[in-house]
């Protein structure tokens, strides 16, 4: 009886968790221009409208540039830190790693305002590059979390075996380490891309004249007439995120399999 109750609770929890997302496509294909029930009829008009909005295209391009750069920079920084954290012991390790991971719990508004104020005090204009810098800061902990898993799963004696068989440290990294953590790297790139693409606060504070996709979305939310288009855009974004996530998860599992390990859970 207790088990059933728990299962029902978990089921309801999952339904509530997905409730808002399920509404998205309902309104995106609804021909009524007001976001409210009852629904009117089926239309793809709002998706068509997305194609005719140049400002949206500019924002999308801007977001893509930022997200791709962030994914690359965060993953590189994450590789350094994750490798150091799993492979070596050094003085102050806990403090250093803890500090690098701090943006994971720090309210984003604090990161945003401190970066903005530094830029303002230095008299620099905020813009695309400053958003990339900010996003890299908050994505690096996620990259580290994912890559640390990959490195930790790898038996250290594999690298020693390669060196023992005549390879140099660099060729060992290329022949053994990289192939074995590659799935983790791909997963990290994808996750950082998703986070950056979706991040609002830092972009909102730092975007200046070139808004990112979320910042542009935010500006649309003020105009009721634009809301159906927002729903259409949201639907696409959600689908894209889910697609990338499934991809990232697949890579993560492939990495585990390649390392000959059993799956132990999800991200984080």
């Amino acid at each position, binding site marked *: 009886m207790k088990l059933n109750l728990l*299962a029902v609770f978990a089921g309801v929890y999952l339904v509530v968790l*997905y409730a808002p997302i399920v509404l998205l496509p309902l309104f995106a294909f609804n021909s009524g221009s007001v976001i409210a029930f009852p629904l009117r009829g089926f239309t793809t008009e709002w998706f068509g409208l997305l194609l005719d909005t140049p400002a949206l295209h500019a924002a999308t391009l801007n977001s893509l540039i930022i997200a791709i750069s962030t994914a690359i920079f965060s993953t590189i920084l994450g590789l350094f*830190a994750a490798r150091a954290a799993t492979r070596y*012991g050094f003085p102050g390790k806990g403090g250093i790693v803890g500090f690098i991971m701090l943006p994971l719990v720090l*309210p984003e508004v*604090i990161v945003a305002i401190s970066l903005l104020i530094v830029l303002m005090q230095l008299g620099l204009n905020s813009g695309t590059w400053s958003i990339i810098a900010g996003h*890299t800061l908050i994505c690096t902990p996620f990259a580290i979390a994912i890559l640390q898993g990959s490195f930790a799963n790898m038996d250290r004696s594999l690298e020693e075996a390669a060196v023992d068989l005549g390879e140099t440290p660099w060729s060992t990294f290329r022949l053994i380490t990289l192939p074995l953590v590659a799935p983790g790297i791909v997963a990290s790139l994808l996750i950082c891309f998703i986070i950056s693409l979706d991040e*609002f606060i830092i972009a909102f504070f730092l975007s200046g004249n070139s808004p990112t996709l979320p910042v542009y979305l935010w500006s649309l*939310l003020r105009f009721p007439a634009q809301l159906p288009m927002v729903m259409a855009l949201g639907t696409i974004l959600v689908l894209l995120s889910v697609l990338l*996530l499934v991809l990232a998860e697949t890579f993560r599992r492939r990495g585990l399999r390649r390392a000959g390990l059993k799956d132990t859970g999800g991200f984080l």
Partner: protein
Amino acid sequence: MGEVAGIGKLMRSEAGKGLTLISPTFVYALLLLAAPLAMILLLSFWTQEFLTIVRDFQLGNYQEALSDPIYTALMLRSLRISATVTLVTVVLAFPVAYYISFHVRHERKSLWLFLITIPFWTSYLIRVFLWRVILAYDGPVNSGLLALGVIDEPLGWILYNANSVVITLAHAYAPFAILPIFVVLEKIDRSLLEAARDLGESRAMAFLRVTLPLAMPGVLAAVLIVFIPTVGDYVTPQLVGGSGGLMIANNIHAQIFAFNNRPMGATLAVLAMLIVAMTLLWGISRLRFWLWLADRMGGGMRGGAIALGAAVAEIAAIRVAFSAAPGLVGPEAAIIGLLLIVSAGSALILTRVPKGRWGI
């Protein structure tokens, strides 16, 4: 020459290699996190006069922030909303984490976790906005309840106030609460529970005496991971909070962009971090103290009652101090006094009272 050789040796040592390897990431975090944080701390002691910033070290911003009821009400509300969100999120998350860990078949667990994390990765902005739609006057909640005949007219109190902020944030942070609790529950050796049952405990008591204490570190992690970021949330209060649901991040944004008062924005940011840190310090240390007290007083109902009494007494004392002291000794003295009492008490507890069997 010797020195160069020494450095070379250090670079080749374990510690040297580790430090060298982590330095790019660490330096990046120092430049983009530590330095800016130091900058806002510095700025919070300066003042804005029209378009220029006066670079004199003074406490004016803090005085203003702590004495002006607008700011104090804002900070207290942020704290209250975050605390409620944390409570709701963690209490609702625990059974789900428990269900996944104890009742879902092993090979299905990662699917469940994946399903739970997916919403977290989808556009935060749009998710929050959708809650505005759901909770709206003519939204699905109200129309559903009307259709079912539960209510006669749409509920007005579920949107544009603190309630809607709590609902939306609790929804947004659900996966954050589930994951750490799940991880800890997974680590619990199942034979411990069998041993407890074998030693005569009922299923419920085995849960209370074994599972719950062992899961506490995960619960604590969930509390931290929900409480800290929600205090600083901007989007949710702005979209669904109305004027009665605004939080500190909204005011920080307004100070910088609308009022062009960066020092005040910086001050509020520093205060927000300070409040989070103090609240957590206070909460964790007191929890340890109360649990310890309950055990020392013989445990069971009696110990529990004494600990509860101590908790109520302290909270009442803090409330009185917070509301009455500013009138008696002035706001700065009251705040500084309160800070000292809370931090000194916490430090005393955390150093003197040992970690109990609840692992806090």
